[in-house]
Structures are given as structure tokens and as C-alpha cells.
């Protein structure tokens, strides 16, 4: 038969094909590949730890600039661990491990099931551990001794007659090979479980266009239906904030630069959220009382969850993850700072935006956050011996933002009650221009009724022209008299400067007064003295007003007034606060009168159907590794051959690939046992 060229090439191709697939298998199951892959996965994992993952895209854009932002985005570096290339290497590792196990499996099986009783004398002599006896016993006895020695040392044996010789094959520690299989199968099992719980299915749904990530912050009812995922479709990890007394049947899955809405097969009602505290005020536990309404259940489930104590229902696990305000209702009094002393009642909830009509002005008030407790280390606790430290609670406070007509915002933080600062009590009103900055606090001193009223009246009085005039007259008079200059014209001139300075003070604080003085005394010969005098006048004027008000408040005449140290202290603080108010940048000051606290609990809800697989894999892995490391597979053979002279030749040899040093001892013990029963009648030879 003549072979055509075509058929030859077809055959050759077939052979090459077969060889190719064999090469592929060889390659996939090779140790070099395994080691390289282990190292590559390790290095790839580094990227995801160096670059914070799954941040809002805008953050990356700011950090890297438009060019690199785009490059990194294409490489999927913002979510490395679900990037296609990362999953590909991981998949490769799993494939390689799988191929490796399946290729080694038959050999391993042979290793554990076969006793290799077909060994030859030469191969036993080639083992580094072997021993030979010339025993004056019959074959049966020698065999019994060898069997006894091996079984006594815990070996399982098989006996086989081969030609003249009786061969006893013994082995121990077979489970080490099982360890290899368990370890490597476990890697594959864990990976499969991981895939089930990973976001690969979601990615596929997205690629098929079944779901679309929503990027805008919409109320739930307006989220389009293609961004919803039906209950019990796959694994997810989502979160939701639920205010006390409210309920939710969905969670939000944060994905790249947007989110999806995952429906739950039940409703969660949050009855209460609590923070438990250590005696020193630090939080010790966060707890939520939940009620689960499931249509499949006759009775709702009631359970309290806390950090480290989640609730699992229908394959969904509900965790205490975070907390926040749930819309605390607040009654606030706004006091205008324009000298009218007008009060504006405000009432609203946290997260509400309110419009304030303040005479000619308009402001938007955004109620941002509320804190029930403000616990700080007490800085006055000087004796901090060892572990003892002290804490103080400064009571409730709230955050808000005020926006002017142009949308320009300032951020405020105000305490409800006075706070103790270095032995004095103040109402603290924090302000910052930028959210990244720390707050700068306006310290308003409290009066004898622990309120801000007296300060507010004082501040208001500074806007009263007549009152300021009269006070500045008195101040000028007093000062000039003290200096021994009695000149009515000078008095009214000085009084006018005092008036002017107070207006600067109200509008720009002491800084503005300084600047104004500086420009006025510029060039004058006695500038420092003039400046000092002007400051004295301003201070005296303010003090005159204060004295008058204080006398009024106490129901005595100014002359009969006793000014004590605390009064002076109040005055000092009030002057600083008046200056502070000028920089405060708000047309009104808010005072919280009353609140109804309402918190929200932050729940994380997960569903991971692959969890059982992963845990099983982990258990296999641990068992496998310990077997692999701490059991060693060893074999011993005894070859018993009768000699023509009536003696019996006994050759024993053994091997332990893993721990040869350890095996040396065991083999010595075996031969000692043999010696005892064959020894007196045998002649030993090591070779």
C-alpha cells in the first residue's frame, strides 16, 4: 500500500497533537510552574495592598491625575482582586495544582497500597539502612522474628514467597501521602468556594447587561430597576443604615464608582441601637435590637446583635458594622448677632436642610450630625500613674453647615452645655472654613445662671450707640483725670475714638482694631504711647459698659457695685469672645434647647453560599499539612533465604525519604530487636 503524502502528514500531526497536549499537561503540573505561580500571585497581591482599593473614583483622579488615572483604571488596579488578569493567574494556579494532584494521584495510590514485595537483594543492599544476619534458625522462626520486630514497631506487613526467598514488606506512615492529596485538593476546594462567593457572577451579569451600576445618589424608589438584584441570586456583601424605629428590605452593594440595590427575602426592623460603655466612657460594645419579618415565618425573629455576635437567617448573616445619627430631632434657638437680640426658633432633624430668613439675609442651614457624648481624656489629670487615666464627658454637640446666598459654606460645631476649659466654663462654638481643618472655637463665658444670656446682652449693648457714647465719655473722663489732664474737648475727642474702635471690634475683632490703630498712629512721634492709650480707652469703655450692666443685673448702683475676681475674669473672657464673634462668620449663633435622640445602626449583610466549601477546604488543608509534615512514610523489607548449610540468611533494609536522620534511630531499634532473637546464633554483617 502506498501512503499518500496527505495521510503521512495527518498522522504526524496527530502524533504532534498528542505530544502537545502531553507537553501542556506536563507544563501545567510542573513544579517550576507551581513555584513561579506562587511567587507571581504573591507579588500581584502586593499591588492591592499598596493602592487603597475600591475608593471613590474621584479620589484616584485627584491623586494620580487624568493620564495615570486612566492607565490604572484600564489595568483594573482599583479593584485588583477581581481584575480579570488577577483571576486569570489565580485560575492558572488552581489549574496547575489540580493537574498536579491528578497526575500524582496514581503514583500516590501505588505508594500507599503496594508493599513492593518484589524487591531484589541488590536494591536492599543499596539502601543506606540495611543489615544482614546469618541465623542458625529455620526460615519460619526467622520470619516470625522479622514479623514480630516489624509489627512490634508498628509496621503493617505483607508477606510473599519469591523463589527461594520469603519477602516481608512493611510500611508505616501512609497517611503522609494522604496529606499531600488533602493539602493540594484543599487548595482547589478553597479556590472553588472563593469563586462561588466572589463577584465573578456579578461581573458576568454586568457584562451581559443584566445589571447596571447606579452612580447617582437617588432615593430608593427612584433607583432604576436594572440596578436591582433579586433576592437569593448569589453571594453579596452589602451595607445599609437603618434609623431606630425604621425598617429596610434591601442592602446596597458598593461597586467601583457606584452601587447596586440587593433585595432581601425579609424585612429588618431596628427597634433600638445602643452603645455600651466601659466605666471610663470608652465604648465597649455596639448593639442593635432587630426584628426580622419573613413571610415564610409564622413569628418574627427578635434578636440583639453586636460586634462579633451576628445573626444568621436564611443564609444571610447580619452584622453590626457601624452606626450614625438616624435623624435626631432638635429644637434650636438662633440668636442674631446684629445687635437686635432677635431670636429665631429653629426645629429640624439631622440630615435636613432648612432655609433661614434672617431679615435681609438668607442662609441655608444643613444639620449634619449629632453627638450624644463627647468623651475626652481629661488634660487636667496630671497624676497619670500607670494605667489610670481620667475622662470627661462634655455632653451633646451637633454639627451644621451654613451656606450664604452664593453657596459659600462654613462649618460649625456647637456644644449644648457649657464645657469646662482650664477651670472656667464656656459655651463652645467651633467654626472652620474647610472640612479638612480643625475647628477653631469661640469661647463664650457663662454667667451666674450658667447661660450665655449675659454675654449676649453685653454683645448687644455694644451695638447701642447712646450707651457706647455715654460709656466712652465716662472712660475718657476717668482716664484723663487719672493722667491729670482736665480738658473737656479732649474728652469728647477721645470718646469719639473709643466709639470708632468699638465698631471695628464688632466688625473685625481685635485684629481689625489693631490694624486701624496702626494706620492712625503711623508717623506720629509718640506712636507706641498713643497706641497704648487708645487701647486703654477701648478697654475702659468696654469695662464701663460692663459695670453698668453688672450693676443693673445685681440691682445696685454702679457706685455700690463690688467687682470681684470672677467678674473681672468674665469681662476678660467676654472681650475675647466679642472679638471672636466678629471672626465667627455667622449672622447668628445657635443654641440647642432640646433634642430627641435617634440613632441609626449600620448593618452589613452578607450571603456567601460558598462559605461551607471554603471552610471544608480549610479543614482539609490543615489536616493535610500536619500529616505532610509530621507523619513520615517509611518502608522496611526483610528478605529471608534458607542456605544449603541449614542456616538462614536474613537481609533487612529500610528507607524514609523524608527524614533519614530520624529513621536511622528507628532502624537501629529494629535491628536491636532482631539481634535479641537472632543474635546469639547469628553472625552480623553490615555489608
Amino acid at each position, binding site marked *: 500500500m502506498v501512503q499518500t503524502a496527505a495521510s503521512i502528514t495527518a498522522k504526524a500531526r496527530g502524533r504532534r497533537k498528542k505530544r502537545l497536549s502531553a507537553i501542556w499537561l506536563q507544563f501545567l503540573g510542573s513544579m517550576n510552574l507551581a*513555584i513561579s505561580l506562587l511567587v507571581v500571585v504573591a507579588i500581584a497581591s502586593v499591588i492591592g495592598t499598596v493602592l487603597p482599593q475600591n475608593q471613590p473614583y474621584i479620589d484616584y483622579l485627584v491623586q494620580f491625575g487624568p493620564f495615570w488615572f486612566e492607565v490604572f483604571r484600564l489595568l483594573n488596579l482599583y479593584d485588583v482582586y477581581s481584575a480579570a488578569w488577577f483571576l486569570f493567574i489565580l485560575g492558572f494556579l488552581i489549574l496547575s495544582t489540580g493537574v498536579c494532584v491528578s497526575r500524582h494521584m496514581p503514583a500516590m495510590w501505588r505508594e500507599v497500597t503496594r508493599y513492593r514485595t518484589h524487591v531484589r537483594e541488590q536494591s536492599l543492599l543499596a539502601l543506606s539502612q540495611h543489615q544482614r544476619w546469618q541465623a542458625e534458625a529455620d526460615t519460619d522462626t526467622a520470619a516470625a522474628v522479622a514479623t514480630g520486630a516489624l509489627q512490634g514497631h508498628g509496621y503493617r506487613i505483607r508477606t510473599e514467597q519469591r523463589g527461594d526467598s520469603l519477602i516481608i514488606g512493611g510500611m508505616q506512615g501512609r497517611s503522609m501521602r494522604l496529606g499531600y492529596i488533602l493539602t493540594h485538593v484543599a487548595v482547589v476546594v478553597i479556590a472553588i468556594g472563593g469563586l462561588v462567593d466572589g463577584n465573578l457572577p456579578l461581573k458576568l451579569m454586568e457584562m451581559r447587561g443584566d445589571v447596571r451600576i447606579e452612580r447617582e445618589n437617588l432615593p430608593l424608589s427612584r433607583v432604576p430597576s436594572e440596578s436591582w438584584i433579586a433576592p437569593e441570586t448569589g453571594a453579596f456583601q452589602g451595607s445599609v443604615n437603618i434609623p431606630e424605629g425604621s425598617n429596610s428590605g434591601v442592602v446596597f452593594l458598593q461597586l467601583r464608582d457606584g452601587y447596586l440595590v440587593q433585595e432581601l427575602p425579609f424585612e429588618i426592623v431596628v427597634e433600638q441601637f445602643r452603645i455600651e460603655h466601659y466605666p471610663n466612657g470608652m465604648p*465597649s460594645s455596639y448593639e442593635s435590637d432587630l426584628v426580622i419579618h419573613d413571610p415564610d415565618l409564622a413569628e418574627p425573629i427578635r434578636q440583639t446583635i453586636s460586634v462579633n455576635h451576628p445573626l444568621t437567617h436564611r443564609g444571610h448573616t447580619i452584622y453590626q458594622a457601624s452606626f450614625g445619627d438616624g435623624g435626631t430631632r432638635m429644637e434650636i434657638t438662633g440668636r442674631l448677632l446684629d445687635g437686635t437680640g432677635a431670636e429665631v426658633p429653629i426645629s429640624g432633624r439631622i440630615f435636613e436642610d432648612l432655609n433661614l430668613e434672617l431679615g435681609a439675609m438668607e442662609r441655608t442651614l444643613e444639620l449634619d450630625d449629632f453627638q450624644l457624648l463627647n468623651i475626652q481624656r481629661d488634660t487636667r489629670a496630671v497624676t497619670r500613674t500607670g494605667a489610670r487615666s481620667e475622662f470627661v464627658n462634655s455632653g451633646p454637640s451637633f454639627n451644621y453647615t451654613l451656606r450664604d446666598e452664593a453657596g459659600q459654606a462654613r462649618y460649625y460645631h456647637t456644644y449644648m452645655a457649657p464645657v469646662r476649659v482650664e477651670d472656667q466654663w464656656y459655651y463652645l462654638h467651633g467654626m472652620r472654613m474647610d472640612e479638612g481643618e480643625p475647628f477653631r472655637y469661640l469661647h463664650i463665658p457663662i454667667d451666674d445662671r450658667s447661660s450665655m444670656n449675659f454675654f449676649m446682652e453685653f454683645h448687644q449693648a455694644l451695638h447701642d450707640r447712646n450707651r457706647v457714647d455715654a460709656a466712652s465719655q465716662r472712660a475718657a473722663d476717668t482716664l484723663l483725670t487719672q493722667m491729670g489732664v482736665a480738658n473737656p474737648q479732649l474728652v469728647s475727642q477721645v470718646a469719639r475714638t473709643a466709639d470708632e474702635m468699638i465698631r471695628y471690634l464688632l466688625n473685625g475683632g481685635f485684629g481689625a482694631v489693631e490694624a486701624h490703630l496702626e494706620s492712625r498712629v503711623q508717623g506720629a512721634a509718640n506712636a507706641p504711647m498713643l497706641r497704648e492709650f487708645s487701647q486703654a480707652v477701648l478697654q475702659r469703655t468696654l469695662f464701663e459698659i460692663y459695670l453698668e450692666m453688672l450693676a443693673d443685673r445685681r440691682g445696685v448702683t454702679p457706685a455700690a457695685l463690688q467687682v470681684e475676681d470672677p467678674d473681672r475674669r468674665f469681662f476678660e473672657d467676654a472681650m475675647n469672645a466679642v472679638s471672636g464673634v466678629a471672626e465667627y462668620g455667622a449672622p447668628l449663633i445657635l443654641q440647642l434647647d432640646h433634642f430627641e435622640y435617634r440613632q441609626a445602626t449600620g448593618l452589613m449583610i452578607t450571603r456567601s453560599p460558598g462559605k461551607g466549601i*471554603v471552610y471544608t477546604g480549610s479543614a482539609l488543608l490543615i489536616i493535610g499539612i500536619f500529616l505532610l509534615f509530621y507523619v513520615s512514610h517509611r518502608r522496611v523489607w526483610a528478605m529471608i533465604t534458607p542456605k544449603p548449610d541449614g542456616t538462614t540468611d536474613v537481609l533487612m533494609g529500610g528507607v524514609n525519604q523524608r527524614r533519614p536522620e530520624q529513621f536511622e534511630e528507628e532502624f537501629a531499634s529494629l535491628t536491636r530487636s532482631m539481634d535479641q532473637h537472632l543474635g546469639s546464633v547469628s553472625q552480623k554483617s553490615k555489608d
Partner: protein
Amino acid sequence: MAVSRDQIIRDMRQPSYWQRLSWKDWLWAAVMVVATAVTLIVLWDAMNYYEVVITAITGATMMWMGWYWAASKIYMSAVCLISLFAISRYPELAAAEADFFLRYIGSSQSAIMWMSALFPAATLAYGAGLLTGNAFASKVGTALTWTGAGAGLIGLLVRWHETHLYEGGIGYIPVSNLYEVFVLFALMTALIYLYYEGVHRTRTMGFWVLLIISASVGFLLWYHFDRGAYQIEPLVPALNSYWMKIHVPTNFVGYGCFAIAAMLGVAYLIRARVADDSPWAARLPTLKQIDDVSYRAIALGFAFFTVATVLGALWAAEAWGAYWSWDPKESWALIVWLNYAAWLHLRFTKGLRGKVMAWWAIIGLFVTTFAFLGVNMFLSGLHSYGEL
């Protein structure tokens, strides 16, 4: 021969594990059973189900440790007795200052300071042994290492009691912050080393291992004096879990083993440059010893690290809602794990030995150190507990 086959087999039966235990071992077991029972009875009301289980496992582990490693019986007994004595003198925290014994020896601060002095002293002693070849100096090194490891463990145990005395009894096992785990690292590494020293009957490895322990003591002291890290602080709720009690110590067996392997890698590279007939050769461990101990340390470390990572996953599942979230700490645990898996494959299945493996073990320690320290310092994530 009139001996029956069965008779021979019976005669040659090796004593089983249980039969090989001496009366000392059984006495030890009895002491452990009683101690565990007393602990359970005294603290019954204060413990939850898991803590009872953990206590029982601890008792069993100590029993087994005593059997497996005879020297550890003395160590465990001494540590327990001294700790109990220290605790008995603690009606309240202030006693740490007032009581003479506590102030100079038994309070956690003092004990940890003793540890911080003893380990560097042991390093010097081993170093002297290395330089002069004086066997006595190395013996002193061993004694100092045992004492240092004892002081460290006493420090932690007493601190555990102190946390319960702290305002309102915040009580937690002291393996919850960097300061405490550094103590744990130093003493764990020392103990694992002492075990191998006993097995190989050589003190030539001591200097190298003690170097890394002293380095960690140096960090500990800086942390103590510069940052006041020794202060007992209440636990953040996420750490308040029984998983922590087993996850962290398990992890540190791993870290300790990897540290030992890396230092032996250094010793290997040095020994490989020394001629066999030089006097230094006798004062350094043999290449075979290093090779064997490195392998055993990495195998032990890898096994424990695997268990620790799985425990961490179980804990994460309970605390954060996902057994694996690719948090930086988790990712770095995986990196460390993969790195040593690669090492084991190279060494075991490719049969690669020598300098490459020594270098790999040294680099492995840098990777491990980053996972242990670097992640906390440079990367943010769930492990920084910024959330709650």
C-alpha cells in the same frame, strides 16, 4: 526453638506511647488535670462556653508539651507559680507600686523589663561563647534565654490579671496591641529556639537567634519609653472575641519560626564562607544542622501560620461579615504563606538546599515583618479598627 510465633511477636512489641511515659509524666498529667479543674471551678462564673473549651484545650496542650519536651515542665511550673504568686499580691492596681515583690519583679511592667534585660544579656553570653569558644558562656546564654522567656510570659500573664483590675475590669488577654504582641514574639521565638537547641544539643545557633529577639526587644523599649505603649487601654469592641485568644498566639508561633529560619539563613551564609579546619567552624553550627533546623522551623511555622490564617478567616467572618475581604493584612498573610509554600516546594520537591534557600529565608523575614508591622504602620484597612 520452642518459642511460638505469637510469643515472639508479643515479646518484640515496642512499648506504646502511653507505656513509655514515666511516673514523672503521669505526675505532670495529674498536676495539669488538677490545675485545669481548679481554674475552671474558680473562674466558672466568669467564663463563657468558649472560654471553658479554650481553658480545657490549654490544659491538655500543657500536659502534652510537658510529655513531649521534658524541659518545658520546669519552665511552665515556674512561670505558673511565680505568676500566681504575683497575682495573689494584687488586691488592686496600686499594689504594683507599693508591694516590693511586684514593684521589682512581679508586676507586668517589671517582668517585661526583666525580659528586656535578660534577652540582650543572653545575646552577649552566646556572643562571648561564639567569640571565645567558651562552652560555659554559651551555657549561661541558655540559662538567660530560659529566664528571659519566663519573665516575658510572667509579664503577659500578670498583665492579663492587671487588665481585670483596671477601672471597671475591662479584662482582656494581653495580645491585643503591638506592645503586647512584641513581648509575645520575643518569648515565643526564644522558646521555639530553646526547643531546637535541646533537640540538636548545640548552642552554636543561640547567638544568631537571640540577635533578632534582641532587635525586637529594642523596638519594644523604644515603644515603651517613646510612646508610652505599655498603658493598658480598653479593648475596641471588634477585638473583644474569643477568636483573638487563639488567633494571635498561633500566628506568633509562625512569625517566631520564620524569624529563626531567617537568622539561621544568616548563619548559613557565614558558615559557608568559613573553612572547615578554621577554629570558627566548631563554634558555628554545621551546615547540616542549620539546614535541618531551618526546614523544621519553616515547616512548623507554615503549619501554624496556616492554622492562624484560617482562624483569622473564621474570626473575620464573625466580626466583619466576610471570611476574606482582601484587607491589606489578609493579603499580606497570603503573600507570606505563598512565599513559604514556594520555599517548601523548592526545598522539598526540587531538593534545592544551600545559599539560595538561606537567602530566600532571609528575604522571607522581610516579607513577614512587613505583614506583621509594615501593614499596621503604612497601610490602612480593617485591621486598624478605624471603623468603630
